[in-house]
């Protein structure tokens, strides 16, 4: 390998003074995001719910598992039970606050794990293309072909009930979806002129992936993944509803919906509350994810 | 600036167009032009000059909610800016029509070419579907599409670039407009196809007696089709005249720069006389000569006020205070 001639540069490390700093990509994203009022509102809601879950011990007025057979199915506004009592006399407000913990966890954890595995699979398939891509992506397609609800139920049923198994089955549901997006975005980036230019400079695949592909690909995949959080929450709630997820008496919104099912004629407002919580949280995540996507969309 | 006694086909007086939004853009800043019936006016300019916006104003194709249009736009004696939705619908296609750079903008991919042309005809005239289709065939023959009967039933994606362009022209002519607007229709075409389309447009214009306003950034193209030229910069017309006058004796420094940039008379091996710098951002309406920062002849007076459009003769104007002394030698 001949010495690099024609590139006459000083070999000593030169302290590079900072020049006029451009605001940078992320501060641009933040600026655009701040302007989107809906996204900011959604972000605040999500933040409040997360804080509520973290500080549940301080916020909840009562013990969420303490039941009282005398005070079953009390309506909203009953003294001592601000949001009513459920079918076992437990304080709804406390159960909703504590329920946020599990519901959020079941929403975020499977998506996060799926993001890691799905990205690796998808980016590799997208970058290397050819037979490797075909083999990987068609395998992914097999799983993708199942409707997510059915697949989640089937997997949960096979693995058994419980939080850990629910998370596992949801992760398996989401990995193919993320892998598909990852592969698609990576394929686009791979054929971009700047990647060709990098190859023309003599860079190897590893360097190209690290410098050029990851930075442009992880963003869109991440945004897509955040849009799955609400889906994950709803699926997890569905699994709990069917008895395949959380076990009673642990407060979790989906489970609460299940156990309050029969109370819908007696105390409809109370029975609907966990559903409202799921609705608000998942919509906020959705709007947040939309706002992130718009903010990251740099117009040239 | 017309000296003819007949009513001009197009009369734009002091038209301004401003886009509101995250940033305000003053795209057109006081454009006045006229077009006689049956004549071709070429508008020459680069990106950001406002030439496409000017064209779209004639058809009210700009987004209504965030556009402020000022001035007067008269086409065939009608006040375009005052039309309501029904009048506008009758006006578009039948009085004024437009062809674009990208035929995909005008041709719907899910309908055949024949269907689209026939639809345009029946929207303006009460004739049967069969008669409309026959007229569509005539139009395809008019634009010299090979095998026109087959093309009637073809979808846009089944045709090559040049044929799509011809189909778009046929579509634009379907309702026999008096004014044809052309927004860089040949920019994306190969050289041998471009000249075919230019010749076709010239011939159609002659045969049908249409007025044409042709927007382009390529001087050669403008020379081939236009009778008169208007050069636009930063939303204003900086020079007008016949093609001969502008080519042989350009007065405005920007026109001279454009001609040099088109390698008009360039000597190989010598440096091109490139215009330095870049066009201004159009966030504010201009209060002085927009070209002065890039102009090699700029004087202090150029920065004080907007140069007025000086008349140098019959339909010959220049927006440059240096031209006050009459026609300067080239």
């Amino acid at each position: 390998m001949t010495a690099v001639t024609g590139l006459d540069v000083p070999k000593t490390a030169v302290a590079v003074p900072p020049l006029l700093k451009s605001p940078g990509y992320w501060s641009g994203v933040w600026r655009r995001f701040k302007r989107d009022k809906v996204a900011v509102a959604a972000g605040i809601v999500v933040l409040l719910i997360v804080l509520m879950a973290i500080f549940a011990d301080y916020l909840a007025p009562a013990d969420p598992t303490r039941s009282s057979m005398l005070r079953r199915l009390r309506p909203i506004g009953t003294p001592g039970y601000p949001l009513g009592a459920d079918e076992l006399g437990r304080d709804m407000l406390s159960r909703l606050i504590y329920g946020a913990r599990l519901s959020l966890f079941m929403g975020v954890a499977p998506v996060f794990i799926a993001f890691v595995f799905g990205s690796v699979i998808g980016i590799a398939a997208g970058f290397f293309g050819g037979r490797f891509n075909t083999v990987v992506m068609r395998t992914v397609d097999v799983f993708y072909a199942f409707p997510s609800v059915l697949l989640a139920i089937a997997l949960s049923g096979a693995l058994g009930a419980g939080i850990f198994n629910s998370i596992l089955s949801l992760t398996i549901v989401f990995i193919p979806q993320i892998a598909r997006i990852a592969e698609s975005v990576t394929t686009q980036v791979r054929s971009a002129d700047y990647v060709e230019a990098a190859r023309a400079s003599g860079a190897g695949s590893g360097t190209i992936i690290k410098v050029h592909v990851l930075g442009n690909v992880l963003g869109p995949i991440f945004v897509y993944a955040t849009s799955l959080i609400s889906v994950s929450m709803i699926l997890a709630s569905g699994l709990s509803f069917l008895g395949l997820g959380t076990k009673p008496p642990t407060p979790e919104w989906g489970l609460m919906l299940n156990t309050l099912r029969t109370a819908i004629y007696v105390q409809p407002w109370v029975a609907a509350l966990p559903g409202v919580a799921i609705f608000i949280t998942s919509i906020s995540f959705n709007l947040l994810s939309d706002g992130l996507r718009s903010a990251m969309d740099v117009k040239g | 600036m017309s000296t003819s006694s007949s009513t001009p086909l197009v009369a734009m007086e002091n038209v301004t167009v401003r886009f509101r939004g995250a940033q305000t853009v003053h795209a057109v800043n006081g454009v006045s032009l006229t077009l006689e019936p049956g004549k071709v006016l070429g508008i020459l300019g680069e990106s950001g000059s406002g030439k496409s916006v000017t064209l779209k104003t004639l058809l009210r194709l700009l987004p209504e909610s965030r556009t402020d249009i000022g001035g007067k736009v008269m086409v065939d004696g009608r006040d375009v800016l005052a039309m309501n939705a029904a009048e506008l619908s009758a006006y578009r296609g039948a009085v004024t029509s437009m062809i674009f750079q990208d035929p995909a903008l005008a041709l719907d991919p899910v309908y055949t070419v024949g269907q689209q042309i026939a639809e345009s005809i029946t929207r303006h005239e009460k004739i049967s579907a069969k008669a409309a289709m026959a007229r569509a065939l005539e139009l395809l023959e008019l634009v010299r599409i090979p095998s026109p009967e087959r093309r009637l039933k073809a979808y846009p994606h089944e045709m090559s670039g040049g044929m799509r362009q011809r189909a778009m022209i046929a579509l634009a002519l379907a309702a026999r407009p008096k004014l044809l607007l052309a927004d860089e229709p040949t920019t994306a075409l190969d050289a041998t196809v471009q000249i075919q389309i230019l010749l076709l447009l010239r011939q159609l214009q002659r045969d049908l007696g249409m007025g044409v306003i042709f927007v382009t950034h390529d001087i050669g193209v403008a020379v081939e089709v236009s009778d008169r030229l208007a050069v636009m910069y930063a939303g204003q017309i900086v020079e007008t005249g016949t093609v001969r006058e502008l080519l042989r004796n350009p007065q405005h420094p920007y026109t001279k720069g454009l001609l040099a940039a088109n390698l008009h008379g360039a000597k190989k091996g010598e440096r091109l006389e490139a215009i330095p710098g870049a066009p201004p951002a159009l966030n504010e309406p201009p209060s002085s000569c927009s070209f002065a920062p890039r102009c090699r002849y700029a004087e202090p007076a150029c920065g004080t006020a907007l140069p007025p459009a000086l008349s140098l003769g019959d339909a010959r104007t220049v927006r440059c205070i240096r031209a006050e002394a009459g026609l300067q030698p080239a």
Partner: protein
Amino acid sequence: MTLTLYVEDAQDRGGAGTPLLQAKALTKHFPLGGGAVVRAVDGVDFSVLKGETLGVVGESGCGKSTTARVVMQLIPQDKGELLFDGEAVGTRALSLKDYRRQAQMVFQDSYASLNPRLTIEDSVAFGPTVHGVPKAAAIERARELLAKVGLDPARFAARYPHELSGGQRQRVNIARALALGPRLVILDEAVSALDKSVEAQVLNLLADLREEFGLTYVFISHDLNVVRFISDRVMVMYLGEVVEIGPVEDLYDDPRHPYTRALLSAMPSMDPDNRTMEAPLAGDPPNPINPPEGCRFHPRCPHAQTVCAKVKPALVATSDAEGARRVACHMEIAGSGHSRAPALESAA
């Protein structure tokens, strides 16, 4: 600090006589489904002399962009040889990585050519870092190059591509191409997407850089005026083949191939009293799937005869120009069977 970019004499291994680039019978086909093949580049022969600018012209489907990519080895050729300064590219004599230091390319789309997540200086510095130059030194070099192409580093180095105009981005791309100190720069429609006034600025810049760094250019463009202005020799391509190649002024004044004639006369006239009256060619440029037999231009050629449909004309030197001009047309090949061909020199 002086920026030593260009070739030291030690790098000129082939000497003045060896062309910097030689393409021999380059062929690249792209298979489509169902047996059809896009014959994008078919047996292309040409060379580029040191220090010259070779213009390449042709319309859609002619294969000029594919040829550029094969020359850069972004796509490997199916058949044919590529020699750089006398050494075969991709062999032990000249590894691909070494070749890539010496041959660089500027693309048409100035925005797509730059990683939107990297600052300008990082983009320009990337190439040298791949070849072992330490990051700080590469950044320093990048800033000097930015200054050379007319972008003040203090204002531009830390910016992102979307903050620059098209002309500025193209200057960055040129700086990026020069960062490795190449000897050959391929410009694939590099100025086509720019406004005319910006294009003129960039053309001036290219001429200056060529002068200063002793560069050799391959300039691909559809704009015949620009090609005439910047090139020393011109190569005309049609449907994957070279149809004519020669010194620019000779070729423009006296085109020999019927397609070259058509292409040149298709240029809009700049004289309002002398407008074009007739289109030189009818129809659109064909696509290179299943090109015609024999001479690929014969279906559209006004002088086509039987031999043209049967025999492919070789690219041969015309008799008068001492080998400087080569044309692939039976009308120029002695004894080809075309009624207009010159007679064979009969042996005494």
